[in-house]
């Protein structure tokens, strides 16, 4: 009873704080100074049509490095927590088998065929999203999430499919390494970390424009996609340890 009253009081308190914030909020009529600078000088300096991409990748490149690091740490944490420990005696195996035996009904042929048809299209769409990150809404993280959803599709429809963990971890490490190399090249050859003027700014609005942004987003998209696929693979119950 006391606990309920306490929870109620906390919610009322936060509700009044939010209400005060909401009532005193009035919209900005025009862009603030920082946004004004990014929108004004962005297309000329960076050359990307998508202004949010130019902010995320170049103007605020260090935040993106922190984000990639946080994703890597969380994937490592999941991999560490769900590591397959050695069974102590035989009794653990039987209890697990009884509860999970029900789920081994194989998928029907319709689902398998549709999966084999649809999975390349999903991955192609993910690649399209992160390659065109500087021209239309999208980018590396969104494209990587689409690739990971393709993997989840595969794991749900064909539960016996085998995904090689060595290949996933190798590609992910290589992409992360490539991302940091491009950033360091920005420091060496250009103006700062992740400067995208190390490659020529092509014609505005075409696919090979905006300097190194397509390359950066390719590395980020591949890294995020494979990382999230590895996390999903860990959550599968009786995955054969590879």
């Amino acid at each position, binding site marked *: 009873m006391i606990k309920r009253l306490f929870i109620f009081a906390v919610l009322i308190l936060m509700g009044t704080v939010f209400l005060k914030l909401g009532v005193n909020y009035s919209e900005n009529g025009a862009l603030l100074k920082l946004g004004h600078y990014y929108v004004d000088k962005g297309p000329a300096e960076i050359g990307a049509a998508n202004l949010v991409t130019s902010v995320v990748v170049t103007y605020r490149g260090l935040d993106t490095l922190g984000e990639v690091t946080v994703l890597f740490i969380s994937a490592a944490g999941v991999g560490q927590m769900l590591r397959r420990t050695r069974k102590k005696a035989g009794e653990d195996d039987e209890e697990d088998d009884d509860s999970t035996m029900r789920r081994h*009904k194989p998928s*029907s042929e*319709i689902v398998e065929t549709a999966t084999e048809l*649809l999975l390349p299209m999903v991955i192609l769409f993910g690649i399209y999203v992160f390659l065109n990150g500087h021209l239309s809404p999208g980018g590396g993280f969104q494209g990587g999430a689409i690739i990971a959803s393709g993997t989840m599709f595969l794991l749900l429809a064909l539960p016996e499919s085998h995904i090689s963990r060595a290949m996933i971890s190798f590609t992910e490490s290589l992409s992360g390494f490539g991302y940091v190399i491009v950033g360091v090249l920005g420091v060496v050859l250009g103006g700062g970390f992740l400067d995208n003027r190390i490659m020529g700014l092509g014609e505005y609005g075409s696919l090979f424009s905006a300097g190194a942004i397509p390359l950066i987003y390719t590395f980020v998209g591949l890294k995020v996609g494979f990382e999230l696929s590895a996390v999903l693979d860990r959550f599968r119950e009786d995955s054969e340890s590879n």
Partner: protein
Amino acid sequence: MGEILGSIFIVSGAFFLFSAGLGVLRMPDTYNRIQTGTKATTLGTILVLVGLACLHPAWALKLLILVFFVMLTNPVSSHALARASHAIGIYETEATVVDQLEEPTIEPETEQAE
């Protein structure tokens, strides 16, 4: 002319989508609901997209690809749902006549070379 044709398609698509919602509300058990939900919504979506292609002929190819994707994924997902709900034993209504997913009660004859 294209506008009138497109509008007719869109209105008929809306009618089919409405009947899908009505069917999901009124059908007696899960399997019937899955069936009405899938068939009527797929047809309604296809009609709405075709009508939109009549109104904006410049988008026709993209809308055709969308129709293809809808026809590829909607029936497969409803098939998987219906199989899964049968596998965990969701009850069927009393008006059921034939259940094709039950285990066969006739043993297959073994053909020996005799």
